[in-house]
């Protein structure tokens, strides 16, 4: 039933853009239409001589609601099993997060634990982010991995599960995609079982927000005057401080992270998950020594994949991780919980219009949220500028 997604996720600018609702929709009536959230396709229905709009959601089992990670967002983080500093060995000798991810995937694919990977990637012709199905070791090695440019990653889920018939799929994306899979797996709806069975592993990168693909056009093409055909590769710098366009002539153009952040998806404003708290494996640079990435496993499956990669000599690990920095970063992004409370307040206020009990609660919550708490050590600037109202 799209109305709940429409009124509680899309209208509140809360969509994470993972695309699982589009994939799970049994009627295939949700589609992407140049907007930051899916839209419901209007289909006509012919009754006798009249044509009317088909209300396709009236006879649906609400697969989209079962799948949407933003409908019930208060996820308790999965407990970290191991926290390691890791770097990739073998053909991808590097400590960058995407190389660590590729090493683990290569090991998983070679041993037959996986037969397919769904991941975000950059399409080199247009420099556009795309969701890709990767199935051979060769493809894993040549894939770029997530680059913080947004594409709905689950757009290819149906193809992987139903057309290519993959049984053991890994999803490599941002924390919200891992949340979506976690929610999907918690569902009791039997029609979603093919997906539940097929997705074996979720991997996520540390994420503060994902950028709209227009960023490339606006900053690189318009402001830096670099045309798309000059660019050989587009990637996140190893320290995650900037987006890098590597040109064919060997020069590198840097887009600072702060500049790119002006193109963050609106839905990321309410997300408080930095460390991939629902993913089996989370990888990022924060807290790791030079030339390494921090690797957090949060489940038995994640542990197994990491052990497998170490045994195959594709991963080198140590315990030199600055866990205090990780905790501080997680706490920092937790401040976005406030954004979520505001979204909740809006729903509470709407409910309060019909329900007198909730009305009082909404008024109290409104007053409580808008009263900005004074914090020690932070001085608010005195407000100046009487407008003479």
């Amino acid at each position, binding site marked *: 039933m799209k109305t709940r997604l429409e009124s509680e996720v899309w209208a509140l600018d809360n969509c994470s853009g993972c695309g699982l609702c589009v994939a799970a929709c049994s009627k295939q009536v949700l589609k992407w239409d140049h907007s930051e959230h899916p839209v419901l396709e209007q289909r006509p229905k012919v009754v006798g001589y009249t044509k009317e709009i088909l209300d396709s959601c009236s006879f649906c089992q609400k697969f989209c609601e079962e799948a949407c990670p933003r409908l019930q967002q208060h996820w308790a983080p999965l407990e970290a099993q191991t926290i390691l500093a890791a770097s990739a060995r073998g053909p991808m000798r590097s400590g960058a997060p995407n190389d660590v991810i590729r090493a683990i995937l290569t090991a998983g694919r070679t041993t037959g634990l996986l037969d397919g990977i769904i991941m975000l990637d950059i399409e080199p012709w247009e420099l556009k982010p795309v969701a890709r199905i990767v199935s051979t070791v060769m493809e894993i090695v040549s894939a770029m991995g997530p680059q913080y440019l947004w594409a709905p990653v689950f757009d290819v889920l149906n193809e992987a599960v139903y057309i290519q018939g993959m049984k053991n799929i890994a999803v490599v994306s941002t924390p919200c995609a891992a949340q979506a899979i976690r929610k999907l797996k918690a569902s009791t709806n039997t029609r979603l079982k093919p997906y539940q069975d097929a997705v074996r592993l979720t991997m996520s990168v540390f994420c503060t927000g994902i950028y709209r693909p227009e960023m490339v056009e606006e900053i690189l093409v318009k402001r830096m005057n670099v045309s798309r055909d000059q660019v050989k590769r587009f990637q996140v710098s190893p320290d995650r401080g900037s987006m890098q366009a590597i040109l064919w002539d060997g020069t590198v153009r840097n887009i600072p992270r702060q500049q790119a952040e002006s193109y963050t998806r609106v839905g990321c404003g309410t997300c408080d998950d930095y460390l991939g708290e629902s993913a089996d494996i989370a990888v990022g640079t924060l807290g790791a020594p030079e030339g390494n990435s921090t690797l957090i496993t949060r489940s038995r499956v994640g542990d197994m994949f990491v052990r497998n990669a170490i045994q195959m000599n594709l991963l080198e690990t140590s315990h030199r991780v600055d866990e205090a920095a990780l905790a501080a970063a997680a706490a920092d992004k937790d401040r976005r919980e406030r954004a979520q409370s505001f979204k909740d307040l809006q729903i509470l206020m709407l409910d309060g219009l019909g329900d007198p009990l909730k009305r009082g609660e909404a008024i109290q919550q409104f007053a409580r949220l*808008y009263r900005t708490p004074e914090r020690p050590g932070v001085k608010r600037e005195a*407000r100046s500028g009487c407008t003479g109202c």
Partner: protein
Amino acid sequence: MRLRPGRYADPGIYVLGSVHQPADTAEALFQAYLTGARATRFLNQETITLETPIASVDPALCTGCGNCPQVCPTLAIHMTKRDSILSLAKVDEMRCIGCGNCVVVCPVKAIALPGWDNIEIPAQISAALQSRQNGGPKIVALACEWSAFGAADMAGVHHLSYPANIRILRMNCSARFDPYHILWAFINGADGVFLGACPPGECHYGVGNLYAAERFEKLKTEMSAHGVNPRRLHLEYLTVDDGRKFAEAATKFEKEIRQLLPEEEL
């Protein structure tokens, strides 16, 4: 275009006397003195002080989500680095024109705009809803000061009558029409909320009215999904001299709200 005595929509252009409405010599002279004083004051100063309110970001609350730079009409906001994984939004004071669009989109309400603050507007709304004069429905009108507020003024000038139970609150721009404030009005007992914005293409701040229209549509969707009649919210495009249109729209809206309400509530 006159907004309030001595204030005009286009900076630097002043219209006096009978040009905008019939006025006798004394009135025209008074306006000329006022305008002259303003022009002299402007020309005499060494440094120019901006009159517009300037948005300011509370660094303790800002979560660096990057929503505000995307909606700023003058590109006055950019993200800056700070000692944290999250960045901080910074407002360029010289560029900010005080439309309030960023205040509305901020998901953590970390941006303050003096004069049209998140504390002040709800307080105005609840004060406006405190008393009920003639037993009719309670209606709050949020009016953009560059259009609808001027239009309401013009309706008064032309002695046009519109229902007295419409309380008009002056807002700086329709971009500042915050869904939270509209819901706050409803939850405090408003039967209807009337929004007055500039027609598309005529916004003083660029495209604030288009943002307002988009938020208006979204809020209507949410209201109907939660069983609230979306007709209780109304958006009207008005220009500053649309006194008659304002009076007509307000009267029509009040009548419509009256029909929606059950008998005993009136």
